[in-house]
């Protein structure tokens, strides 16, 4: 079977969802139930561990893997602290490293991300770093013990699709880890395209949460992700720049 394996854990579904930007927690539960997504990212800075206010964790069905993220962190040290708090509070070993130092375009800080990954991987975390797609960074993350690489397709929230496609292709060709496109995916067709390229999964948050019908949109993304994956496995017919005759034109020549 074609399973996605991250940090030794098997997933049947390759659509990872997000829990930010929704209008209610109930909607998150419904979205997960209907989309069959098996992994959801949650911003730990939003989780009230004191139990004083409503908790998003109560709305996530059992069996859906939690991917706490370090959003809000601006340095490796802050991300590391958030990761440790997430683990100590029962959110598990998975952690998405998100370190943003640019509040204008919300670009990830690759350097700080590598630093945080080095430390957290040693502590046994299953580290999924969010980066600006760059091969050198990806290779450093691989060496540091990351479990997957999460390049952005376009700036967060922009819904612009795979603007960084050529860079992501380089990562797919050269990395041994699952490549999961995170940020920028605005339409199911973008998710499908990422999967056709050979990415292992996609993470979609804004495009689902802010659509008119988030549940229906999540279902659409699930189907698109599957379609893209199947196309990738079926090996799409090559686009040829040169004419190809259906039967050989030079086969009459003998050695």
């Amino acid at each position, binding site marked *: 079977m074609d399973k996605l394996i991250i940090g030794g854990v098997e997933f049947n579904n390759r659509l990872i969802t997000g829990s930010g930007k*929704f209008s209610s927690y109930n909607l998150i539960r419904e979205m997960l139930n209907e989309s069959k997504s098996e992994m959801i990212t949650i911003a730990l800075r939003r989780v009230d561990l004191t139990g004083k206010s409503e908790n998003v964790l109560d709305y996530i069905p059992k069996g859906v893997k939690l991917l706490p993220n370090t959003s809000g962190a601006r340095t490796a040290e802050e991300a590391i*602290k958030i990761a440790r708090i997430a683990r100590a509070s029962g959110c598990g070993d998975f952690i998405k490293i998100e370190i943003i130092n640019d509040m*204008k375009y919300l670009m990830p800080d690759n350097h700080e991300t590598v630093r945080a990954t080095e430390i957290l991987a040693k502590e046994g975390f299953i580290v999924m770093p969010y980066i600006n797609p760059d091969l050198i960074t990806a290779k450093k993350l691989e060496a540091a013990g990351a479990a997957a690489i999460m390049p952005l397709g376009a700036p967060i929230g922009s819904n612009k699709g795979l603007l960084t496609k050529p860079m992501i292709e380089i990562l797919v060709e050269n990395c041994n880890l699952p490549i999961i496109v995170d940020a920028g995916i605005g339409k199911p067709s973008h998710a499908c395209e990422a999967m056709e390229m050979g990415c292992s999964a996609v993470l979609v948050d804004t495009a689902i949460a*802010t659509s008119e019908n988030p549940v229906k949109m999540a279902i659409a993304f699930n189907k698109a992700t599957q379609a893209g994956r199947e196309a990738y496995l079926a090996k799409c017919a090559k686009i040829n720049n040169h004419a190809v005759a259906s039967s050989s034109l030079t086969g009459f020549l003998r050695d």
Partner: protein
Amino acid sequence: MMMDRIVESYNDFDFENFFRSLDSKKILDVIDRSGEKVLEDMDLLTLLSPQAQEFLEEMAIKANVITKQYFGKEIHIYAPLYISNICDNECTYCGFKHSNPIKRRHLTYDEIEKESKYISETLGVHSIILLTGESYINSLEYLKNAITILKKYFNTVIIEVQPLSVEEYFELKTVGLDGVTVYQECYDKELYKTYHLSGKKSDYKYRLDTPERASIADLRSVNIGALFGLGNPVKEAFLSGLHLRYLTNKFLNTQFSISIPRIKEAYRNIKPQNIISDKQFVQFLLAYRLCFPTSGINISTRESKEFRDNLLPLGVTKFSAGSVTEVGGYSLSNGSSPQFETDDHRSVVEIVDMLKIKGYQPIFKDWESSI
């Protein structure tokens, strides 16, 4: 260029002439480019122009899309906590000004603790703005101890106190200070003098550079704005927008937000001049959202509840709730005067219910205090 230079560079600018040069095509073109391209200074002024008032609906549609894209349907909830109304300054428009014979109060540490406990446990709010008048009595030590107490109860603590030095902001950061709110009040330097008669606040430049000092001290968030009712509204909105742009470009690491406070009647019927209409208020808010897609926009309880609710889809990201503007007004025996009258008197629970009915998720916590 420093911010005071930017303000100066517009001293002789012919605003009227610029407005005359605008036509519908130019305004629609700016609205069209917003959200995709970085808008220039003149684009901001175009959106703030009297002519653009005819395109509020087009601006609103775009602002709604941009807001959902970057902030989703979440609204952050915070409450103000006044711990002192003692003030050494003489700002003509304020109920706390030195010469006002109002009952003054300066909370003790025990009282701060009691108020904090009440707000966090009874109201359930986890994000607080600590406010004082501007006085020598709010020593660095007093502020430091107050923040230390607040940090036991709140995830996010922001101060709106007298402008401090970089070193002082650094010092407060060590006990957990997250951010600073500082309003320039009036960007027009000449007019500024006429409203700020005495006290440290009469130093225009020191105040203007305060958000910058807070950013140098690497605080997580800085909120700025003009107090509408003092200067020419369009110019004030324009210069505060330029201030936001200046800061956003210079300090990538800080989350900036802007407020659009309108003067409210305070002690002794202060009658504001130049007060902006609801329509202008909405126009300014939309212009900011179109020009600054990732910046926060706060709406306080100065505004009426109907008005606030209608602003929700237009770009707002933060809402104060259950606000009391008197010192010790939440849980202690009372008698002190409010800094200004609030208009939205709903409780936190009522605001949360309203947000949910309107399809918004109230966010109480947005940062981990132990980090």
